[in-house]
């Protein structure tokens, strides 16, 4: 059985191994042991409330209960751009028109932007190859929305994700070649790593400050602005299904899109419900198809845990949990839990879950 829980110090080796296998393109989790250790410390400080919740880095591990190994990680940065400056390009349009001449031209234009400053970011998703499939990626990603919802006051109203942009098999980025490389005297990978290490003064120093008119870039570069890397397409699709939309911002190096959603509009948040746990000795088959599973979480800030159960365990006021799930979540009968469908499958078909429990959680 797999369970989501806060990242712990003992996860360093597992994390390092995962980062090594992930290779390039994951700038927030480079295979740098010291850096990973610092990140774990920061996460521990966050969960233990040794730093302000708004300044925290919330990293979750996906643990295989049987082996006690971390097989996946995902995170939430409570606020970006607090210490360092957080840069994006805004993909905007410049319109020039002359009625006299009957000319009307729209020029896509990149404006340097710091507009994500002070916003919560979901980041650092990484899943061990052996565990891909079976809804584990969904769990790893979506558990964060349950946490965001539960502790909404620590996060911004809006949450965003930066999607990896297009690069070829050698790690060359067409946008970097056409734009970044003209201003930064370095390789794309070096700039990406420097930026990932949180060393961003060089961006302020070297970055072009005036808008970039896209028609001046070659077609190969224009084509990738706002586009995701093939490997990232499934992640993007998942976020779009959650209600995330492209917000017009792209990565300054590779042009990958930023997608965002108001927390109250995220599907997992909208569709989540509260129940009381009822631990049952009756056998429950946990191995149901992904589409019939629900995420179930405890409601702890310090020791947030999420597992999956069959949807038909959900009753009008309670939810039936097998003892091992209750144990994994560190709860007992009567404790409040939160539930949300693991997979988006349209209106909830054929479950108790559905009949009386749709909640409108609109927040203004």
């Amino acid at each position: 059985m797999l369970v989501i829980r806060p990242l712990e110090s003992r996860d360093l080796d597992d994390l390092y191994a995962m980062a090594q296998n992930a290779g390039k393109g994951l700038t927030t989790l480079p295979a740098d042991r010291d850096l990973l250790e610092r990140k774990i410390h920061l996460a521990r400080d966050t969960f233990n409330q040794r730093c302000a919740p708004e300044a925290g880095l919330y990293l979750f591990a996906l643990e295989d209960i049987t082996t006690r190994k971390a097989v996946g990680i995902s995170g939430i940065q409570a606020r970006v751009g607090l210490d360092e400056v957080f840069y994006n390009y805004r993909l905007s349009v410049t319109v020039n028109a002359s009625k006299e001449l009957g000319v009307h031209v729209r020029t896509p234009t990149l404006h340097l932007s710091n507009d994500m400053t002070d916003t919560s970011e979901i980041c650092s998703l990484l899943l061990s190859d052996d565990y891909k499939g079976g809804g584990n990626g969904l769990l790893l990603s979506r558990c964060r929305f349950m946490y965001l919802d539960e502790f909404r006051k620590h996060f911004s109203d809006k949450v965003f994700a930066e999607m990896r942009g297009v690069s070829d098999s050698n790690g060359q980025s067409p946008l970097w070649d056409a734009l970044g490389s003209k201003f930064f005297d370095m390789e794309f990978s070096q700039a990406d790593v420097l930026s990932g290490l949180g060393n961003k003064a060089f961006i302020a120093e070297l970055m072009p400050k005036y808008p970039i008119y896209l028609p001046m870039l070659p077609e190969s570069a224009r084509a990738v602005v706002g586009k995701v890397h093939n490997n990232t397409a499934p992640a993007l699709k998942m976020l779009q299904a959650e209600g995330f939309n492209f917000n017009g911002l792209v990565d300054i190096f590779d042009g990958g899109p930023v997608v965002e959603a108001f927390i109250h509009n995220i599907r997992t948040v909208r569709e989540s419900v509260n129940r009381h746990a009822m631990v049952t000795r009756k056998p429950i088959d946990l191995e149901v198809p992904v589409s019939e599973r629900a995420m179930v979480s405890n409601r702890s800030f310090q020791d947030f845990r999420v597992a999956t159960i069959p949807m038909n365990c959900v009753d009008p006021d309670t939810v039936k949990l097998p003892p091992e799930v209750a144990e994994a979540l560190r709860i007992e009968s009567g404790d409040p839990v939160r539930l949300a469908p693991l997979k988006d499958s349209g209106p909830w078909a054929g479950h108790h879950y559905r009949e009386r429990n749709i909640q409108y959680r609109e927040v203004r």
Partner: protein
Amino acid sequence: MWLVRPARPDDLDQILDIAGAQCARLSSTLPRQSEALARKIEHSLASFRGDTLDGEPPRFLFVLENTDTGGVDGTAAIDARAGNGQPFYNYRRDALIHASHELGVSRRVEVLYPSHGLTDHTLLCSFSIRNELRDTNAFELLSRSRLLFIAEHREWFSSRVVVEIQGVQTETGNVPFWDSLGRHFFNMDFETADQYSGMLSKTFIAELMPPNPVYVTLLSLAAQKALGQAHQLTLPNLELLKREGFQAGSYLDIFDAGPVLEARTDTLHTVVTSRRKTLHASHEDSGDVCLISAGDGEGFRCTLTPVAESLDDQLKVPVKTWQILGKTAGDPVRIAPL
């Protein structure tokens, strides 16, 4: 003989003929449409009289006349105030230095800033001459006659004079700078834009020009190479202007990135070296050939003449020069060496 004089309404057809035969850039100041040109001539004549038309600043249009045939073989103009009361658009080429102390990286980043910095300077423009006259004294006469006019009517002009030199164009008529920049925003070919620029108010430039500075490194290589480069055809004129003291500064034409030459009016070679003299007769038809001008405003005439003797304020030239200038003994003239 060659005579430079103010353009007249009856020169219109011949001017159109010359304008049509010239390469594109002329059109930005000399319209190819007969109505627009007629209006320009009218405005020019008013300017020569010291009047203004519709409150526009003075604009002077000269023609080169072959007095033997009465034919017009060239044109040249002065706009007293570049922009003619509207903004005068250029790019100003400047560099920023992007340097990171920590990384030990330093890079010179060239930027083109939209600029109106030359607005209201005096502008020499609309220079055109029949090809067969390019290597003759008539060429120098036509170009420099304007400077004699400025010297004679100094108060009508600004303290600085500028000239836009046509930029690089390929043999197939492509303008690399335009293709790399302007075309994207104006959505028309170079020649069309250039003609609009001559005919319309400059509102369309304010409307269509990219509103922010442009990084040179993002231009095509051909466009980068063309920055501040003069068209091959303009080299004789460029040479002549440089001898007058014009220098290329940091301003470029917004359409083709040709250089804009600048000079202080009061240090122009012709302004400094020309002298006012009194006309006297010479019975010889020999001597050094000089530029000579006479007449105020619409009576302005400029020609080439052999100078027999030039002592103090007296100048002896052949009587046929008097005739061309429409002057007689004792009249004031202005003379400058070739």
